[in-house]
């Protein structure tokens, strides 16, 4: 009995897009309702799956431990002397992907809510949004590398157009920058995929395969093949497996993003319309983190262990650098974009520790940052919608003008700066505990990295509180004068309805993190075992 829930979850937006295409363009408001219904349905579906998800389903390298699996042959091509080409439609869920699927569905609903007032060719906008929705769901579910790559690339195009057409003044520059950065990563990724394909065979059929789970088992590598651990092949005098790991890591790390591959992010965020910023921060960055765990670490565990120190360093640098740069920003959105760089640095650091605490913390941080950053960008959008300005120095004393909005901002800021009781605290603390313990558990990371990482928590208090004080406190003063103070109305019911659940979620996960950890733990244990156990 397999109701194909996961497949329905992935392709539902495609159906919605198809329906939208049949709706005549003059019925503008129909699109957003179709999108909203789809989003809510996905949210309920993924919520139900989350609830049904068995916490013992570790997944990682064992197909039988995945849940909601659909595995059917997709492309079978006899290539003569080269054997048979095997590409499967293979999707399934484990503790790494389940929370991220739910998160994606949630962030999508928020993004649709934030798209409510899109006027410019609404049809195209919502069709692209639905395509993007399908692609991200697919990325988090695919277990066949070819399928993964298809979804991964499919994600890129709608985003490029959504930024490039619906974005701000410098939208084209931002879109192209985003496109080039990401393309740079994925082109090389394709080479590694091909290399892996020719190195790995399906033990049952003997054919070459794109099945990721087979790639995780050293026994499936053809002896003497490029990525075989035993063959010790080298390219440019770098061991092949290390090279493969580095290439894949860079591809995903661009998405995370890490310093110094992060400069697309502030521009993309600043130019992107609010809903796209929400999706970028809430979902896209997590694709990077997810890819590192699912693919880089699982397929090249040996290289992951070798590179752990460097990854830890990258994490720490991103944390501190992002926070420091956030301190000097004058544009609220750019400030939050850099804070994302800093907060995502914790994800890298936690993974690099290769301890259960650190990796679980990295997962938790991704979830927490997912909806908190979505909330932050939504809040920026609320301001921008009203006065088309985001300059931190252009506002003062907003607390007097917009009290409810101020409560939301203050809660979101305090949640983001890692106050105990909110989710970000749990994520960051687990990352640091993991890093701290790494020295005695596996000796991969030195303790100073834990301490340097925690300095980031301190800096985040500085930039968030500074912003709060600069924009919200003091006597009201607005750059736009009376016109602005008329435009700056307090949070509307629609906006309140979107904000409240997210802040409640931040609080609930902070007070009762077991809601997420219960689903994550088994997979994290299996992953750490797979990587360090070798």
């Amino acid at each position: 009995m397999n109701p194909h829930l996961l497949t329905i979850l992935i392709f539902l937006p495609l159906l919605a897009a198809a329906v939208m295409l049949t709706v005549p363009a003059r019925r503008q408001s129909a699109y957003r309702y179709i999108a909203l219904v789809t989003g809510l349905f996905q949210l309920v579906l993924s919520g139900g799956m989350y609830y049904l998800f068995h916490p013992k389903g570790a997944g990682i390298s064992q197909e039988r431990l995945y849940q909601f699996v659909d595995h059917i042959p997709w492309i079978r091509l006899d290539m003569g002397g080269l054997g048979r080409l095997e590409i499967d439609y293979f999707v399934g869920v484990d503790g790494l992907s389940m929370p991220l699927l739910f998160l994606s569905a949630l962030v999508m609903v928020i993004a649709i809510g934030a798209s409510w007032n899109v006027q410019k060719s609404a049809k195209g906008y919502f069709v692209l949004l639905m395509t993007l929705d399908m692609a991200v769901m697919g990325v988090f579910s695919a277990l066949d590398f070819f399928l993964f790559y298809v979804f991964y690339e499919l994600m890129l195009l709608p985003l490029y157009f959504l930024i490039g057409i619906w974005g701000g003044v410098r939208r084209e520059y931002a879109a192209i920058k985003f496109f080039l950065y990401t393309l740079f990563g994925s082109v090389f990724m394709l080479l590694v995929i091909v290399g892996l394909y020719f190195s790995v065979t399906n033990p049952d059929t003997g054919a070459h395969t794109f099945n990721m789970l087979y790639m995780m088992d050293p026994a499936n590598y053809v002896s003497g093949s490029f990525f075989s651990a035993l063959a010790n092949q080298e390219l440019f005098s770098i061991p092949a497996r290390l090279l493969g790991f580095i290439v894949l890591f860079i591809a995903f790390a661009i998405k995370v993003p890490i310093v110094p591959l992060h400069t697309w992010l502030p521009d993309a965020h600043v130019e992107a319309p609010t809903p796209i910023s929400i999706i970028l921060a809430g979902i896209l960055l997590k694709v990077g983190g997810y890819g590192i765990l699912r693919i880089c670490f699982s397929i090249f565990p040996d290289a992951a262990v070798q590179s752990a120190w460097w990854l830890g360093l990258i994490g720490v640098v991103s944390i501190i650098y992002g926070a420091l740069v956030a301190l000097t920003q004058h544009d609220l959105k750019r400030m939050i974009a850099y804070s994302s760089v800093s907060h995502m640095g914790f994800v890298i650091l936690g993974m690099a520790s290769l301890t259960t605490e650190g990796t679980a913390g990295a997962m938790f941080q991704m979830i927490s940052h997912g909806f908190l950053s979505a909330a932050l960008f939504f809040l920026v959008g609320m301001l921008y919608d009203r006065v088309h300005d985001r300059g931190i120095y252009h506002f003062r004393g907003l607390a007097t003008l917009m009290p409810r909005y101020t409560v939301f901002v203050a809660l979101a800021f305090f949640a983001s700066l890692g106050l105990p009781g909110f989710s970000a605290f749990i994520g960051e603390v687990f990352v640091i505990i993991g890093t701290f313990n790494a020295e005695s558990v596996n000796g991969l990371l030195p303790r100073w990295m834990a301490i340097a990482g925690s300095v980031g928590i301190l800096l985040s208090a500085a930039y968030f509180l500074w912003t709060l004080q600069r924009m919200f406190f003091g006597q009201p003063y607005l750059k736009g004068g009376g016109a602005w103070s008329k435009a700056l109305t307090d949070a509307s019911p629609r906006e309140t309805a979107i904000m409240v659940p997210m802040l409640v979620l931040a609080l609930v996960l902070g007070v009762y993190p077991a809601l997420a950890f219960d689903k994550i733990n088994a997979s994290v244990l299996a992953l750490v075992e797979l990587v360090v156990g070798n």
Partner: protein
Amino acid sequence: MIDLIWLIPLLPLVGFLLNGLGRNVLSKPLVGLLGSGVVLASFLLSCGVFAEVYTARQAGEPAVFIQSVFEWIAAGSLEVSLSFLVDPLSAIMLLIVTGIGFLIHVYSIGYMKHDAGFAKFFAFLNLFVFFMLVLVLGSNYAVMFIGWEGVGLCSYLLIGFWFKNKEFASAGKKAFVMNRIGDLSFLIAVFLIFNTFGTLEFTGVFPQAAGMAMGDTTLLLVTLLLFVAATGKSAQIPLFTWLPDAMAGPTPVSALIHAATMVTAGIYMIARSNILFTLSPVTLQIVAAIGICTALLAAAIAITQNDIKKVLAYSTVSQLGYMFLGLGVGAFTGAFFHVITHAFFKALLFLGAGSVIHAMGDEQDMRHMGGLKKHLPITYVTMLVATIAIAGIPPLSGFFSKDEILAHAFSANKLLWVLGFVGALFTAFYMFRLLSLTFFGKFRGTTEQADHLHESPASMTVPLIILAVLSAVGGLLNVPSALGGGQALANFLSPVFADSAAVTGPFHLDHSTEYVLMAVSAVGAIVMAVVAYRQYAVKGTVPKADDAPRGVLAKLSYHKFYVDELYDTLVVRPLNALSVFFYRIVDRAGIDGLVNGLGKRVGESAQGIRLLQNGNVGSYIFMMVIAAVLILAFGVFNG
């Protein structure tokens, strides 16, 4: 009653939620009733809990009760439960937090009566009490840390309560960020404790620690980190500058958070972890040194300040320094005794100052006060009691607690005693200076203010009277044996400090030496009180205007030894410069310059093959397939 421990923090949380959500709906009397009522209920429950602890102690039991609420975190090897611990130490803190908390809530009903943010104020105050109770009751370092950060948040919210004033909001931010430096240190200490002991529960950590060697490096590190955390919360060198600025908050906040409860959290935490510190003599020496230096520095600043709340703020910093001195010389009971008496008289002083400020129409500069004795008789008498108590003049409470700390300091190191004695002289001076400038001599304010002068309403004076009684008799809690006392507090707390006592052995000082020390400090305090009284009350000297020329020392003291300016130069500016450097140079010019340059190069060379990009999706897909095939083929031949 013990089964109801969880209700003690929960009630104020409920008060916070009700007042917070109903802030636009509920009437002011209802808000006040609700806000104070929940704290009173917690106080009554705390009394019940205390009674049980007391009974158990009388029966000779250690009286430790643990109540687990739920498992908070379980991931990897880390398991932390939200659980509460009641023992003699936390039982007393419960009474202080809820008891004084209740009085200050009642006082606030009168003090904040005309404020538009009345309900918000009570909500925040309730939230503070909640977090403070979590801090006190936590049975492990993680729960303690939640309370620790939570009180910092409430402190931030309440310091910046009048957020329309830019400086006030900025003071809140400063307090939070400086506290966070300490919190960070706390967090790292927690990691190290977990890494070393495998648990964060007090009942798991301390017995293991008791078995460790004296001077163990890990313990040294843990205690140093915990001490840095304490310097943040309890405003010690180098993290003390936020507390005087924190006076921007409404006066009841200064009384509750920045005098009686939150700022003593650092002392509570170290007293709780006493065995770790006892086994790290180096840390204890540092604690004592920082404590006495802070006590002296802050006292030296207090003698020239003219803002009534600033004087009290520096006095608080200074008195906290005494408590750390006590901890540093192993006088755990003495330090905690001073926490208790200080909570009484300093809360009273702040509330009294609030009563004065209220009567003066929000005037805080003592140069514009004077002669208020006859207008505010109750405020005057109660503040007089508190002043005598804090100055260390017998037989009021401050004398006993300070004496106990100084006696231990004497037996540890004579120099510490001398410095402590000098600090006590300063204390007597600045406190009687404050009293004289405020209540004696002629009124120096405007005629408008003179007409407005009035004694505060009963909701404000009754708490003053209760606190005055406590300040007067609080010393009876722990009368030293030299004076024929039974040392009730020391006996009550003895199980908490038992492990440390086993290491250090019993404290002993001859009675004759003790009499001499007591006499010297009492006489010294009285002399300084008289000097200040003659100078400011009898002669009627008024402190100089802000820009009047001052001697070097007076100038240093008046400008708070330029510590803020020093931090600004050493930390804030370099950090900002670094931040700008990273953004402008590294990010924009460096990385983006490279990317854009690359992009431009690609763009130029792409001009030629532009025809390939004709906007036809079909041809794109075709190209993609061709490319994929080419790549596959490349792989095949190289594989």
